[in-house]
């Protein structure tokens, strides 16, 4: 395993280097530079533009820029954003990445859970109304034109019903007198979510291992209890209303993302289940006299999980670039928006930096999938 990890890490570095180079040259292939925006501005004389070009080093030959870029990236220096000058790229990404991750990880996990549960049911009971409604509904949502669907969700639930805010990350009026800034609150929110997930995960592991009675009750109770404890902690510190504000802004985009993506997992689960159900060990499990639910969950679903996890982990990787469309529609200040605006304003360091982060996450996710597989499938050893 250690040998494998070393080998894979080396591979990852190599892949990252190739990726970096590609991204750099593709981004630099677009005409003009950051100063082109000011070409038509009468207040900025050509001398100023030249000084700007010198400052950002965009007049250097490309190979020199490339060498500087590679050296800087591997030393962890992503440079300074042109359009947010003098903020560094790392600083901007540090602010935007958690927002994107929170949104897309939540949506991915919910849609995975929903898709897996539904796929399990429709594979087991074929031909029922559950199968028809969830398949037709799921596929419709899966193939629907995303911008239209996002706008419809906003129109329906934010504009007409008024249940949720229309886009954005927070409500500026509410935050004017806030004691702390949004990033600090948001980071604490992420920490809370991590604490709750660890608690729930531990509970799942313990109940599954001990095969406890009422395991479902214990799990749901544990989830509710830890969520309550965290909520209580928030309101005790007096910043609960701010966290609630951010949470309220998250609900609609998360719901939209979940609805458009759960059908993928659902159909994959269904097919994987149907394939696994033909296996001999499933017939053996039934012959052993196990209740249907145990056959389905412990034997069929457990084995059907393997290919589904692969697709899930890869989808997580792409959560980093955060669906440009969804972030635009919900005015969510995450990586997707950052990418688009960086590309539009010729902010090359920011664009390249954002791309590099996407690449790093994809590579890490692949490694994570490989490691996860060792735990899911005892046949796999490295």
């Amino acid at each position, binding site marked *: 395993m250690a040998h494998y990890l070393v080998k894979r890490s080396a591979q990852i570095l190599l892949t990252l280097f190739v990726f970096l180079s590609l991204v750099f040259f593709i981004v630099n292939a677009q005409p003009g530079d950051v100063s082109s925006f000011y070409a038509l501005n009468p207040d900025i004389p050509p001398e100023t533009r030249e000084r700007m070009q010198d400052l950002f080093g965009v007049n250097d030959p490309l190979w020199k820029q490339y060498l500087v870029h590679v050296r800087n990236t591997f030393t962890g220096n992503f440079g300074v954003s042109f359009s947010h000058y003098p903020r560094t790229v790392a600083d901007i990404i540090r602010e935007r990445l958690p927002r994107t991750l929170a949104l897309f990880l939540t949506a991915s996990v919910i849609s995975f859970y929903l898709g897996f549960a539904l796929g399990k049911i429709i594979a087991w009971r074929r031909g029922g109304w559950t199968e028809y409604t969830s398949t037709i509904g799921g596929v419709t949502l899966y193939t629907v034109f995303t911008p239209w669907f996002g706008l419809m969700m906003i129109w329906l639930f934010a504009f007409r019903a008024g249940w949720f805010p229309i886009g954005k990350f927070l409500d500026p009026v509410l935050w004017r007198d806030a004691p702390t800034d949004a990033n600090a609150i948001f980071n604490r929110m992420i920490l809370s979510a991590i604490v709750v997930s660890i608690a729930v995960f531990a509970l799942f592991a313990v109940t599954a291992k001990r095969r406890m009675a009422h395991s479902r009750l214990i799990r749901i109770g544990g989830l509710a209890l830890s969520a309550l404890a965290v909520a209580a902690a928030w309101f005790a510190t007096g910043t609960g209303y701010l966290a609630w504000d951010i949470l309220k802004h998250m609900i609609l985009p998360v719901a939209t993302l979940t609805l458009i993506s759960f059908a993928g997992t659902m159909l994959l689960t269904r097919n994987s289940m149907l394939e696994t159900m033909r296996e*001999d*060990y499933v*017939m053996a499990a*039934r012959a052993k006299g196990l209740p249907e639910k145990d056959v389905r969950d412990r*034997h069929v679903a457990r084995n059907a999980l393997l290919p589904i996890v692969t697709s899930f982990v890869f989808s997580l990787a792409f959560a980093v670039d955060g669906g440009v469309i969804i972030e635009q529609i919900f005015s969510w200040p995450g990586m997707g928006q950052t990418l688009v605006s960086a590309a539009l304003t010729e902010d090359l360091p920011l664009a390249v930096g954002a791309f590099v982060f996407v690449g790093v996450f994809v590579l890490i996710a692949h490694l994570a999938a490989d490691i996860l597989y060792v735990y899911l499938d005892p046949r796999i050893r490295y």
Partner: protein
Amino acid sequence: MHYMTRAGAVRAVDGVTFSVERGQSLGLVGESGCGKSSIAISLLKILPDSARILSGSILLEGVDILPLSEDEMREYRWKRISMVFQAAMNSLDPVYRVGDQIIEALELHVGSAPSEAVERVRELYDLVGLNHSFIPRYPHEYSGGMKQRAIIAMALACEPAIIVADEPTTALDVIVQDRILREMRKVRDALDMSMIYISHDMAVIAEVSDVVGVMYAGRIVEFGETKDVFENPIHPYTRALMSAFPSVTGEKRELATLPGEPPNLLAPPSGCRFHPRCPYATEECRSQPPPTVRRGVHWADCWNPPEDQSP
């Protein structure tokens, strides 16, 4: 038992009657596709969705299990009747330790505490000749023969009254096959269990069973004590099967093959189902179902039985 297909009902098992005494072993032999495995899965009622048992009865210790609900049937599965599967290689769930898969059945039916269950698994491993160190290992770490032994250990776990062994040794080489058959026989004698062996291999059946049923096209065409059936076969199909197998001790001879294939059970042949392939077929065979020829407990359905050669 019928399979409902788009082309119509396949009558995979049709008018089959047999009984097995306590401690007795019955062999079912026949070509592929003649309904042997269908009988096996019918006995445990683990039929695929397309299969239906339309009529008849399956008596297990005096109880007809056919009308039982799924919940009631679960009580019988494995506890009273268990099975050694045809594809033993794939009958163990690859993601769980083999020991845990046996314990799963024990906890369900015997309700044993974890420590007792582990103790029982040790006993079972001794019984089938597996090393204890393999209990916490995964199926892919077992060899084919070991998997087969583990499967047998699993089938024995709840001390069932009867075990159905569907081609238990087909995928193994002859040496391992022989050892496993011997051990199965030993275990059966020790625990006084009944067994139903299903195989296409005449040699295996001859070795392990007290009584034999020869199946053809969804029916038992000949039935009797193993010695009678093998020494004085009545039905031409049995004789054809016998002559297709080499004898180790007997004289060298050309092996006879049986031309043709078993009939399509969507529309079985009229009269005797074997007549299209039977060298002795007459007009009667084509039109009328054959009568039963009885020689003691030994019987066969045939129009033109050979002379009784038994002393």
